[in-house]
């Protein structure tokens, strides 16, 4: 079953095109990762999906009654706003203590109910936000660079948690990242984005695609940089906005 479909979606502000004819769909239970350099429109694509901006061209169709659990890039909670973890989790919908405890357990932060949000570390806050998204029993979990600010072991641990969540809930997972290597091993499909979809497929396929090398091959200086590539169109890194 298809969770949602992007049909030739484009977005531009004034003269600058941020996304051009993006078409893809996601099936139930799939893990899809969108990778791309800064300004490639990754986060914009997620914002189109959750409805915070409308596309300039094309159509986005969602399965009827699709429940989306969204984990934002960074929850910049103002220090003047007091908030406990359990209050944050039951803000939009009432949830029993048992359900809150279970969601926190699944997200890897058991027993955090009475903690103040402002006292959490970056990794703990992301897990709390994951628990909050899980409480809505989502068909689709959307994560926007959810591992920003985490160290390498932290990122790996977070993605293992995501895989565990998928096994438990069977929900589709759409995430955006530039932590390429860790993400890719967890994904069924990788979409390489730079204002348009450059290439997509299994992690193995994308990693060897010339379009992917064109975007990420340079500058890593290590194994990825060995490949010398030819491509028929330019990838302008300055184009677009976050």
């Amino acid at each position: 079953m298809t969770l949602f479909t992007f049909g030739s979606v484009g977005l531009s502000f004034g003269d600058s095109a941020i996304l051009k004819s993006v078409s893809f769909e996601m099936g139930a239970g799939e893990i899809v990762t969108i990778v791309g350099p800064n300004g490639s429109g990754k986060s914009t694509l997620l914002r189109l999906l959750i409805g915070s901006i409308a596309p300039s061209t094309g159509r986005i169709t969602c399965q009827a009654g699709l429940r989306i659990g969204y984990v934002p890039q960074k929850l910049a909670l103002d220090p003047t706003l007091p908030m406990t973890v359990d209050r944050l989790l039951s803000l939009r919908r009432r949830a029993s203590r048992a359900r809150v405890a279970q969601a926190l357990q699944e997200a890897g932060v058991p027993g955090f109910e009475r903690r103040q949000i402002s006292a959490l570390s970056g990794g703990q806050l992301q897990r709390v936000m994951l628990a909050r998204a899980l409480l809505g029993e989502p068909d689709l979990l959307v994560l926007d660079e959810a591992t920003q600010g985490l160290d390498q072991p932290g990122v790996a641990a977070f993605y293992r948690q995501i895989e565990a969540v998928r096994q438990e809930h069977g929900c589709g997972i759409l995430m955006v990242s530039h932590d390429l290597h860790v993400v890719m091993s967890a994904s069924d499909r990788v979409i390489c984005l730079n204002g348009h979809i450059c290439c997509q497929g299994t992690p193995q396929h994308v990693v060897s695609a010339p379009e992917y090398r064109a975007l990420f091959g340079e500058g890593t200086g290590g194994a990825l940089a060995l490949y010398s590539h030819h491509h028929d169109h330019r990838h302008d890194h300055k184009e677009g906005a976050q």
Partner: protein
Amino acid sequence: MSWANAILDDFVLRAILAGIGLAFAAAPLGCFVVWRHMAYFGDATAHAAILGVALSLTFSVSIFMGVMGVALVMAFTVSTLGGRGFAMDTILGVLAHSALAFGLVAASFLSGIRIDLMAYLFGDILAVMPRDLGVIWGGGALVVGLLIWRWSALLTSTLNPDLAYAEGVDPRREQMVLNVALAIVVAVAIKVVGALLITAMLIIPAAAARPLTRTPETMALLAGGLASASVVGGIRAAWVFDTPTGPTIVCVVAGVFALSVTVGQVLARR
């Protein structure tokens, strides 16, 4: 006249009731003003009130309606101009002070009518009439009702606009709810503390409640309680020291804030 007699005498009782009515509407709204960094926004809307007074007197409409209308226009102007070329604080600086200046100039044209500017700038709580009390409590109840109705949606869009969209809340609509609430509070508060000190009644009680609370709801309730206590204390102090009542109330709120921050620090160090 003794204090006890003065309370029994209607005007002090009316002043206390008016102040408490304002406190319970302004304090929870003030929490959002603090959380969303809208302090200057509150100032701009409040300063527009003087223009509202001048227009009300010119066109002989009720001060409450005139002030609310102008405050509403100001609030919507500010929230639509935001992010269009100028930094927000620049836009607010331009609008807040021009609104005040235009208001004062407009008031000076009202030569036929005696207008006590000081009363509108600093409030005249001891002159509150039973009719004013109805307007203050009606407006206050409207604001509290609006905030309770939209509470979780307002909080979600304050946390993160994208999170709000993903959960079916339109943050732009919630901003409008706050605009309307702010305009009502300004219209209600002008008689009590005056245009220049309205922002104080919004921000200081909320800031004072912050160090002592762990959830947004307790912060809003405690802010309301502290503001009400300060109103009673301020009216009493103004009576004892023979000082202007509106500013004295704000001084007492400021004292409560200093006390709360100190207590908060002591508690945190334990």
